């Protein structure tokens, strides 16, 4: 049913997105020769541009991301919402968990950097990274990997680590297993549990690039980044640990919890999320 709903929304988004005023699909050949695309909605120049990063294996048309994109664009913000290629040219559908995942996190970060520089090249000096779920992790890790001065803020909605859904024990075992294969230069595809994927098929290197980002790692990253981070979580997000909000607060993270919202800020919490994002964006000049 969820899939059907997503498909319907996706279908409808095909009509909505192109009809948005000024919206365009920008394509580019990446350095890895994959062709990626991003939806660009130019806004007011007085307002920062927002680079929206979708969740794990998802696309910019995921409902939560699409709503943010649309709302921000309607509010006059310049929005750029790319689809991370994940090793697929012109990827515009979610990548199945069972697909062979050759992409690495580093590839994702490089692709994000591409788009940041694209925005800069298009005159946007103030850029806010707005991520959702693993996209928030992407944004956080980008701020650590690529210190682009144009990026003024990171708004991390539903920030998760890669162990958030699976147990730590399983996660550690998988990591160990993958490390063992890597050590043997064995690029055998293996099926791992990663994030919400119960069967994440990837070679060990690709797997480890994501799986190593545990909760602690994320907290460390939060502590290390120089970009202001504002985390917005749903009070009923079942994909995060119960202690995660506290851990984030303890880490000194600017955390805003929307009570009752789930990981995707569904239903009325969509507006709560938007309000929180707007508030977070107003502080960016």
């Amino acid at each position, binding site marked *: 049913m969820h899939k059907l709903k997503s498909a319907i929304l996706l279908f409808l988004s095909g009509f909505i997105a192109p009809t948005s005023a000024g919206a365009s699909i920008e394509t580019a050949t990446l350095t890895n020769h994959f*062709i990626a695309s991003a939806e660009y909605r130019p806004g007011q120049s007085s307002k920062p541009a927002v680079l929206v990063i979708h969740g794990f294996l998802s696309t910019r048309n995921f409902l939560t991301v699409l709503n943010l994109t649309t709302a921000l664009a309607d509010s006059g913000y310049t929005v750029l919402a790319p689809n991370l290629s994940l*090793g*697929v*040219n*012109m*990827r515009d*559908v979610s*990548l*199945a968990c*069972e*697909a*062979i995942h*050759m992409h690495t996190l580093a590839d994702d970060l490089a692709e994000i950097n591409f788009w940041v520089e694209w925005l800069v090249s298009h005159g946007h000096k103030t850029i806010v990274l707005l991520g959702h779920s693993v996209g928030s992790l992407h944004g956080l890790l980008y701020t650590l990997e690529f210190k682009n001065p144009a990026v003024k803020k990171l708004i991390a909605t539903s920030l998760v680590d890669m162990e958030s859904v699976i147990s730590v024990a399983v996660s550690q075992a998988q990591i160990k297993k993958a490390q063992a294969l890597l050590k043997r230069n064995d*690029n055998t*595809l293996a099926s791992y549990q990663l994030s919400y994927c119960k069967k994440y*098929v990837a*070679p060990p290197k690709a797997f480890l690039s994501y799986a190593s980002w545990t909760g602690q790692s994320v907290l460390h990253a939060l502590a290390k980044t120089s970009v202001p981070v504002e985390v917005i979580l749903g009070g009923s997000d079942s994909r995060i640990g119960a202690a995660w909000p506290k851990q984030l607060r303890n880490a000194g993270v600017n955390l805003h919890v929307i009570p009752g919202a789930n990981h995707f800020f569904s239903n009325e919490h969509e507006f709560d999320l938007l309000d929180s994002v707007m508030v977070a964006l107003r502080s960016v000049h």
Partner: protein
Amino acid sequence: MDSFLNTRPAALSRSTAVAGFKMRSKLANMLPLSITAYGLLFILLGLLLFGGFSLLTVSELYTLHVETKQRNLHLAQEELQDTVLHVLAEGEKLAMQFAEWDESLQQFSNSNYYAYWRENRVPYASFAPHDLAGVELYNQAGVALARPQDNDMPAKLSLPITKTTLVRHRDSDNLYFTAPVAYDKQRNDIVGYVVVKIDLKKTLTEKQRFRFADKNTIATDLQDGQTIAAPGIVQHIHVADVPNAGFDQLQDLMLSTLQRFAVIGFSLAALLLYLLVHIFGLPSRRLSRHIDALRHGDRTLLQDTRMHKLSVAEFEKVRLSLNEYQTQLDHRDAEIRESEMRMRAVLDNVIEGIITLNEQGVIESCNPAAGRIFALPEHDIIGRSITSLIADAAQPAYRSYRNECFKIPLRQRHGNEACELTGKRGDQSEFPLEISLSRMQLAQRQLSIVVARDVTERKRSHDRLVYLANFDELTGLPNRTLFRDRLKQAIAHAKREERLVAVIYFDLDHFKKINDTLGHHAGDQLLLDASKRLRDTIREFDTVARLGGDEFVVVLGSVRHVEQVTEIATKLLQALEMPFALEGQEAFVAASAGIAIYPLDDTDIDNLVKNADTAMFRAKEQGGNSYQYFKAEMNAKAIHRLKMESALRYGLERNEFELLYQPRVNLHSGAILSMEALLRWNSQQFGNISPVQFIPLLEETGLIVPVGDWVLKTACEQTRRWHKAGYGLRVSVNLSVRQFRQKDLVKRFRSILHAADFDPQYLELEITEGLLVENMDAAVTILQNLHDVGVRISIDDFGIGYSSLSYLKRLPIDTIKIDRSFVADITDNPEDAVITAAIVALARSLRLDVTAEGIETKAQLDYLTLLGCDEAQGFYFSTPLPAQEFEHHIAQRHIVSKSAPA
């Protein structure tokens, strides 16, 4: 009895449509079907309908099957083609989907994990059908990225590959769909190709749904290794047969439905039958039996406890109502029976006969009493006309009575007065019957009820009472009451006829002595014998009555002369003088008689009786055994009469009688052709007695008979002598009433004529009209017999006696003799002349001779001659003459012819 209570219904009319009427009646009277029969009939009809429907359905189904199969075959083929085209389209689409699948493109970037892609991702692609036979990727050169696992998949594609192809390989027909894979779909920079293989047969038979085509009969006509490129592929795939699954389904459905219907139907039918039988049938049958039993008068079911409550409310109500109604009927029936029995008992025991008649007077019913009254079985009476039970003589009286009864309106429901008739029994004997007739209306019919009573006993009793009221019980003689009545009648009669009535009062001498000495029984016997003797002595129309004790009285009516009384009184005394046999002994009683004459002595009845009584005492004082007239002079007359009577008795012995002859002159010829013989008595004691005196005495005493014989004999002998002398004379003699009454008159006359050797044609008997008064029929017979002998008959003294002239056409009369009374004044009295003329004319018209008597003058003679009279007799011609003088007289007169017999 039953027939009396149950009035016979009217008979059915017998029209020409009686047969149809009987049929309709028969059908109308037939009972309808029972509920069970209706139920069975309904079930049978249902089964027939079901069977017929089933047969019809099967027939239509078969036709439908054939047509449907043909149509379905056509449709199957079309469907197959459409399906193949769809499969082709889907296959092409599938190839395009694989070509566009990001993971397919990924393989071209890194084919290290191609095996994983082919084995783990391709089958689980969301768009990959389960019957996907194979997917392979080929590089731009058309070389497979990996060695195809399926030998059917080519290791290298023949380029350009643009069309879908169907390849038959061994037993399988596979479709190969090729689609280019490009990095940029918009730029269409092809990096390779994807080839999707679909097992056509498997797809068609396992994955596709056919409405019409039979999967098992789909086949291609390709040879092994033959390759056919689209769009020609469709032409090589065929459906050999169609399952007509729809029909099969329909058939199965129909059969199953029919089976279900049959099962349901039979179940329902069985249930219905059970319901009908047990709920309706049995109860209705029980109810029907109940009603039937009641109809036939069987009341036992009323008390049958097994007739428990019926299962249907309406039936139960009917049963209860029936029982209640039957109970009421029983009560009413009992009342009616009791009433009927009472009625029956009344009708059976009543002594009156009760008869019902229909409108035609036919007897419909009667009670036993009627049978007893008419001495006929009841069933014999029924069906008769009521008139058959009534004597013929009483029919007019019955009809008159009935008509009177019918005049009374029906609403006046009271019995009519009774009518006394004479009934007729079965043995045709008649009896006094009294009936009373009433009318009634019963069921649109008007009936009559006749109550009949045999009143024989009542009448007998009444008669006895009447008898006892009028007759002496011991002797049977009229008693004082009746005597007075008889005397009154006799006086009334005598008064009309100017006759006398004599009352002779008798008292038996020495009766008391007899009664005292011999006893009352002897005394009664004496009275009986005396009364018998008195009764036997008197004339038939006289009366003897017993006034009481030993007193009797005799009423002599219609007495002409006192001498008659004397004679009868003398006879009566003589009769009583004869000894009586009493108690084995002879007893001499005798009697004393007193005579009173009406109207000479008195006209009052009581005075007459008293006078007779007085005269009786006078006779008793004179010693009894004699009579005395009330008036002394009558006694002398009586004595004189007796003496004369006595003298007359000896007249014949003493030859004191003589015949004189008076001639009758023929007025046409003037000749004497006949004479009348007239009797004269020259009594030695009394001298010449006028015929006026002695002839009545002869008549009264009965001496006229022997004297009359003597007259006839003498006249015939004398006339015979004259015949022999050459005188053809006819002699007429008078015939008296007493003579005429003699039964052997004709025989005696024939005897006398025969003895005298006399030709009857020369004898004429003169009779008077008074002779005809008593019995005309007897007179006709006697006179006819005499006439047959040859004797002529003449009516003497015509015109002064019998008033009716009808005898003239009945009696064999030859001559009418006009009475002298008319002749005497014929020339002076126009009336006598007219009467005489009429008599002559009457005689002429009847072709009778007419003789006038008493001619004394010439004028009379002339007149009579003028009238046409045939003969005349009278002093004018001659007085009656003795024979010798007569002979001398006729010798002196001219006789027309001597036609005397030899």
